[in-house]
C-alpha cells in the first residue's frame, strides 16, 4: 500500500481534498484510484466559475478502459482548474497528490469538510474494498 499524505481528506469514492493556505480546497483523485483506473488518456474538468454541488459529478477521468465520474467533495465555486492535464492526463497517474490535481474550489459551507475521511479512515475503507 502506498503512502497517503496525512494532510489530505478523502471521499470513500477516492477523491482527495487539501486545504490550502488561502482557504481554497485543492481536489484530485487518490493513488489507489489512479492505479485501479490505469493509464489515463483524457480528463474533462469543470470551468472556472462553475458552481459544484457536494457529491454530484463535476469532472470525468478516462482511462483506455473506461470513463469515471469525479464527485465534488464539497459544494462551492471552481476557482482554478489544472489546464496542463489537457495535454498530459498521465500526470494524474504519475503524481496523483501533487502535479495531478484536478481543480480548486472555494467552499460555500466549511462544515462539509468535517464529513470527509481522514487519511487513516480512507486507508481503512480501501482495505475493506479489497477484502
Amino acid at each position: 500500500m502506498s503512502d497517503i499524505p496525512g494532510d489530505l481528506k478523502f471521499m470513500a469514492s477516492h477523491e482527495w481534498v487539501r486545504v490550502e493556505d488561502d482557504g481554497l480546497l485543492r481536489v484530485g483523485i487518490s493513488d489507489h484510484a489512479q492505479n485501479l483506473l490505469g493509464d489515463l488518456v483524457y480528463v474533462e474538468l469543470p470551468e472556472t466559475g462553475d458552481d459544484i454541488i457536494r457529491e454530484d459529478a463535476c469532472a470525468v477521468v478516462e482511462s483506455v478502459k473506461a470513463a469515471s465520474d469525479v464527485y465534488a467533495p464539497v459544494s462551492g465555486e471552481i476557482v482554478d482548474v489544472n489546464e496542463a492535464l489537457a495535454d498530459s492526463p498521465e500526470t494524474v497517474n504519475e503524481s496523483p497528490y501533487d502535479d495531478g490535481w484536478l481543480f480548486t474550489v472555494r467552499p460555500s459551507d466549511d462544515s462539509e469538510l468535517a464529513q470527509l475521511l481522514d487519511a487513516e479512515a480512507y486507508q481503512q475503507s480501501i482495505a475493506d474494498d479489497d477484502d
Partner: protein
Amino acid sequence: MPIPLSVDRTVPAHTPLFEQHQTQGGRMVDFGGWALPVHYGSQVEEHHAVRREAGLFDVSHMTVVDFEGDRCRDFLSNLLANNVAKIKRPGRALYTCMLTENGGIIDDLIVYGRADGAYRAVVNAATREKDLDWIRARAEGTSVNVIEREDLAMLAVQGPQARDAVHGLLDGADREAVSALDRFWAWDSESLFIARTGYTGEDGYEMLMDASAATRWWEQLLEAGVAPCGLGARDTLRLEAGLSLYGQDIDETTTPAESRLQWTVDLSDNRSFIGRSALEAQLEAGVPRKLVGLVLEGRGVLRQGQSVVGEETAGVVTSGTFSPTLKQSIGLARVPVTTGDQVAVDIRGREVPARVVEPPFVEAADS
C-alpha cells in the same frame, strides 16, 4: 468516482496460467467467467510492446471445437457462411461467420482444416454455450462428432518480433515447418497446433497445446523477451486493427453485410448454408446500415453506446477507445448506409465531430 471494475464475488474459472498471471502482477478480472489479467501494470505499455516488439496473451478462455467424421466438410459447408471448400489442404485457416436462419451472426470464428477430413474451430469464450448448443443440435443425427477441447490451453504471441521468438523455441521439423507458414496457415503436430493468425493486426501466432505444457511455453516465451500482455491491450489492439468484437460490434441482430464482413460470406456458387436466403433477401432489398470506423476530431473518448447524431444519421458507437498508437480516440459505429464522411457523437451531452474512415486505423509494423 465509481471504479469500472467488476467486483464479482463468484469465483471465475482459472486457466492453466492463473498462477503465472499472479506472479507477473496481473490485475485479474472476470472475463466472461474466466479470471484473466486486464493488464500487468500498464495497458498502454503492453499495447506498444505488441506494436513494436512482441507480446504474449493467455487466451485459454477461447473455446476449441474439433469436428471429426467423414462428413465434416458437408456439415461445415452448411453451418458456416464462408465456404470450407476453400480449405483445400490441412492447415488452411478460414475466417467465417456462423449465422442464424435470419442471417444474424451467432459468432465469428476461425476454422482450420486438419488431416483425415477433420476440422478445428476456435470460437469466442462469451458465446461458448450457445455455439455448442447450436452446433450440436445441427450435428445430431449426422456422423459428425463435435468435441470440445477443454484439455487445451491457448497462447497468442503477437508483434513484429513474435515469430522469431517462437521459432527460437522450436526444433527440428517443427521449426522448419512453422518458419515456412504463410499467413492463415497452421502447423498441426503431435504436441503443438500453431497458426499464423491473431487478433491484434500484427504478425504472429496463436498456439494450442496441452494444458500441462502451457506453463513451460509461457515461461520460455517470457525468457525470450516477449512481454506479458493483458486482455485490455488485446482490445485496444484489435480495435486499432479494425477487427470486430463479438457482442459489441456484431451479434445476432446484425448481418455480415451490415458489419464489414460481407467478404467472409461466399455466395459464389449455389451452396446451401444457414442464413443464405435471408442474406440474399437483404442484399436484394438493400442493406440499411453499415459499420464504419470513426476518428474523433474533438476532445473526449468514444465509448460503446454513445449516439451518433447528425442529419438523418442516427447511429451508435459499438466500440470506442483511446488509441495508444494514434494518441486519439477511435471507434466503430453502426450507422445508416447513407451516412457520409463526417458525423457527430454525443459525448455526455456535447456533440463532438468525428471523421468516418475505413479501418484499419493502424497498419501492422514491418516484421
